């Protein structure tokens, strides 16, 4: 019996999540609640209904399928109460895909063949599979088995993690990966807690412990109003150097590409007015790491 996990997307031809051309498997569920998250559908570990008004033709099939329970059509499109409506029924009935379920339970056996589809592309590009999310280590057993299977098949694997999981399961989850893309959102514990809901103690502990053991790329989101300051990046550089880390550092500038998905989930996007950091700022912060001999990229 293989492990199963909840995934919300398999994205092929990904070029920015580890080396080469990669297939990224997005796992659903995250212990953090970042305001800027560009995959809001990844937070909740359960299946959810998303609704894209732009795809909807107001045909009413969804209402029919649920006999009107918790769902109706208005001038603004379909209105539904996600606690009442039968999300499977109405998504299945929707002919346009405007109503769509995110999150599918899949076993390792079911997923592996999908991940292997692009092996010819991995081979040419030095790519492979990246587990992302959400937070993959929330589904540690699934994550572990998947990575072990990939390893046995000789496929390069990477895990994108926020690092927030107690060491034991965290380590078990990522142990078989070739590369860890380790996010550090903020170095200051209170600041960390203020925007993502939890402090960074476990995260920093895991990071320090993982550095000697695994190939890591440090990924620093650059979020104006939260961590986009000289002070923060100086502290981040100090911490990274202090850990003995010798790998690459990637700066991930804030973007609002995910805002439409908040709407689709009937949630409010709270960073509407945030402007992305300027190139000049990014270069200056990148230099803090480069000057210490760390290869630094701006994505």
């Amino acid at each position, binding site marked *: 019996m293989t492990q199963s996990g909840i995934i919300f997307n398999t994205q092929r*031809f990904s070029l920015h999540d580890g080396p080469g051309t990669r297939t990224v498997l997005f796992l659903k569920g995250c212990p953090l609640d970042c305001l800027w998250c560009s995959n809001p559908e990844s937070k909740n570990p359960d299946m959810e209904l998303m609704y894209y008004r732009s795809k909807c033709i107001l045909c009413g099939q969804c209402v029919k399928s649920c006999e009107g329970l918790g769902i109706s059509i208005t001038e603004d499109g379909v209105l539904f109460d996600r606690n009442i409506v039968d999300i499977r029924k109405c998504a299945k009935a929707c*002919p346009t895909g405007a109503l769509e379920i995110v999150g599918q339970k899949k076993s390792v056996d079911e997923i592996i063949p999908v991940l292997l589809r692009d092996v010819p*592309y991995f081979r040419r590009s030095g790519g492979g599979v990246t587990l992302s999310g959400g937070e993959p280590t929330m589904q540690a057993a699934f994550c572990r088995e998947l990575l072990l299977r990939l390893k046995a098949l000789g496929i390069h694997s990477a895990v994108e993690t926020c690092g927030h999981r107690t060491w034991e399961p965290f380590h078990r989850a990522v142990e078989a990966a070739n590369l860890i893309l380790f996010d550090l959102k903020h170095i200051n514990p209170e600041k960390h807690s203020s925007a993502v809901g939890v402090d960074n103690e476990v995260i920093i502990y895991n990071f320090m412990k993982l550095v000697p053991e695994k190939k890591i790329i440090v990924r620093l989101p650059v979020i104006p109003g939260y961590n986009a300051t000289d002070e923060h990046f100086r502290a981040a550089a100090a911490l990274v150097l202090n850990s003995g880390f010798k790998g690459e550092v990637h700066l991930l500038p804030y973007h609002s*590409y995910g805002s439409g998905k908040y709407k689709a989930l009937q949630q409010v996007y709270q960073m509407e007015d945030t402007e992305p950091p300027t190139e000049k700022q990014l270069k200056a912060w990148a230099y803090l790491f480069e000057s210490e001999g760390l290869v630094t990229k701006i994505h």
Partner: protein
Amino acid sequence: MAIDVRLTDPEAAKDVIWRTRKLNEEVLAVNPEICIERARLITESYRETETEPMIIRRAKALANVLEKMTIFIQKDQLIAGVQASKLRSAPLFPETEANYLEKEIDLFEKREQDRLIIPPNIRIELLDEVLPYWKGKCLDEIALASMPEKTREIAMLDEQIFSVGIHLSGSIGHIIADYDRVIAKGYLEIRSEAEDYLRNLNLSDPDNTSKLHFYKSIIIICDAIIRWGKRYSVLARELAASEPDARWKAELEIMADICERVPALPARNFREAVQAFWFSHLLCFIEQNGLAVSVGRFDQFMFPYYRQSIAEDEITKDEAQELLECLWIKFTEIMRAYDFEGAKYYAGFSISENLVLGGVDSQGRDATNELSFMCLDAESHTSLSQPNLSVRVHNNMPEDFFRKAVRIAATGRTKPEFFNDTVAIQSLLSLGVPLKEARDYSISGCVEAVPPHTNGMTNASMSNIAKALELALNNGVCRLSGKQIGPKTGDPKSFTCMEDLLYAFKTQVASYVKEMVTALQFIEKAHAQYYPLPYFSLLLDDCLELGLDFTQGGARYNYTGPQAVGLSDVADSLAAISKFVFDEKSVSMDFLLNALDNDFEGAEELRQQLVNKAPKYGNDDDYVDELASKVVLIYCEEVQQYKNTRGGVYRPGVYSVSANVPLGLHVGALPNGRKSRAALGDGVGPVQACDIMGPTAVTRSVAKLNHELVTNGTLLNQKFSRDLMSTEEGKQGLGNLIRSYFDLGGWHIQFNVVDAEVLRDAQKKPQDHKDLIIRVAGYSAFFVELDSKVQDDIINRTEQTDF
């Protein structure tokens, strides 16, 4: 292949020298006109030669044009030789164009595609002096009149199932000439070869009578070419004498010296070779109006001259580069006044002078050389539609050459296009071409691999397999006209499984392919009789040796290549029927056919279900990809059984140029949710907006087709956002995608970069652009799912880099 005129790669722009920039701008600035001179001179000659053999008449007519046509030298252009009396004006070929010129004369200035200005005096001269002579003599009339009635009827249907218009309204084109030979020998030598052949002819042998006329025509043409070359020498000398600018004066004097020697005598160095090449290439477009007269392996046949000139210090690398760029610009000077319909099929004055770089040599070794790199530079320093540039890819090619080519492709100019040596060579071997010549293939026109010395007629017809499916689903009756145009293959309501439907489809394909081939045989015969091409013939060794014209089978390899258009729509339609009607039984055939009859009027929910919930080709889904493979197999097996009039075979192709739009106009609603008369899918690519799994899934789906069987070639157009292609990762991803697609057996791939206009359209019509992917680290979405403000942001950024 139609190519958008795009602007220069910003990275390369800073290296562009003033001359290239100036000439490039001058070509782009032209508002194309019609030039009447050729039509006037051809007609003048035809009137005088009515009692003579056709091939002699053609030779004399061409000689008359070369003797009397206006020639000019564009200031600062280092290469001499123009097609018509003004820069980028279109000469006329009443031999095949007279009928449409008369009918459409007032459309040229008004039509949306390929507008051409006709000055009033020219319009009057055409109507009063030139066109009346051609009544009943124009090739399309002759060819159509010669066809069996039923074939003619099907070929000329309003709601077309195939279009053979290209060789009714134009000549054959599609030659890969032995340019190496004419450059090395010169036309004096070729003339004396023709004289030798003539002298040794035993004219009492009945097989030799036509050879007498053939060789005489070659001699007439060689003499005319030699005199025509000299005209440029004289003109350059005259201009130099009165030129105040010392630099241009000196350049004119060099030009005069070069043109005094070539093309009559062998080229001795790179400058002479480039000039001799251009004269020879240009003449193809003065003799005849067929498109896709392709350059072939330019970096191979020109390299010896380059190497020698560099070694002997006759030219510097920079000077050679400058000369190459002058040549690059001249390719786009070639014009053709397509008819109204043709302009839709081959949009953008598409001439398809395909120039191939790289690849293996006849021994299988890498053939890339310094000139290959310089040609890529010439491409990135210019921004014009020609040449149609191709790069042959093989495992042993230099990585830096490949990367350079990919970087140019990433600018979104749809070229260079990439070809897979392994598959192209294998497919030529399967046609019986010896390994040595198979390895020496080049591309004729769009994607058609041909060995040297070929009359490929590779774009013989565009056929509508989507229409064949419509007929299979309507018992042979055209859904648009209500006419019975295909065989009665049974009421689809009686079909109980996919096999029944596929059998009906195959029967419809077999029926129209037979009519199409029949039409083409008569068209080929008409060309052989009324539009022989003695100049083309002297460009090929075999024609000269055999004393047989290019149109009559004189080339070493003779193919006829009709294309299938609409593959993805057929595959998706079959998949939808398979899933909903036969597997799930959730939609009845009756209900579906009713919806098709009514173009989904009142059945929008069904249409949405067909569009959104059925498997779609291009997503690496075996369910539908296998059906696509079956469709290709059916088409190929039907086509490849036929022989042409020149001793060669029919080669099936699956590509559309822009024919997927006009052919789509003739197809009713389809079970993939496509509305009546909408455009069909392009080439072997997925239906627009139906590929939502990204480019690896697209290429995997397409690679499942048996490309080696599609011996006339397949075309895959893959699009990318400018956002992605402006990143280093994006460019690397593009290169790796090409390599992997070719590992999997793909034939050809080219790239479009999605511009701001398309993104704006996607905001308005998200359903038509579901396939636009956004790739950012750790993030997943499609463009149409982004919030409108974010979309605006991306559009703005795209515009900034689009310029």
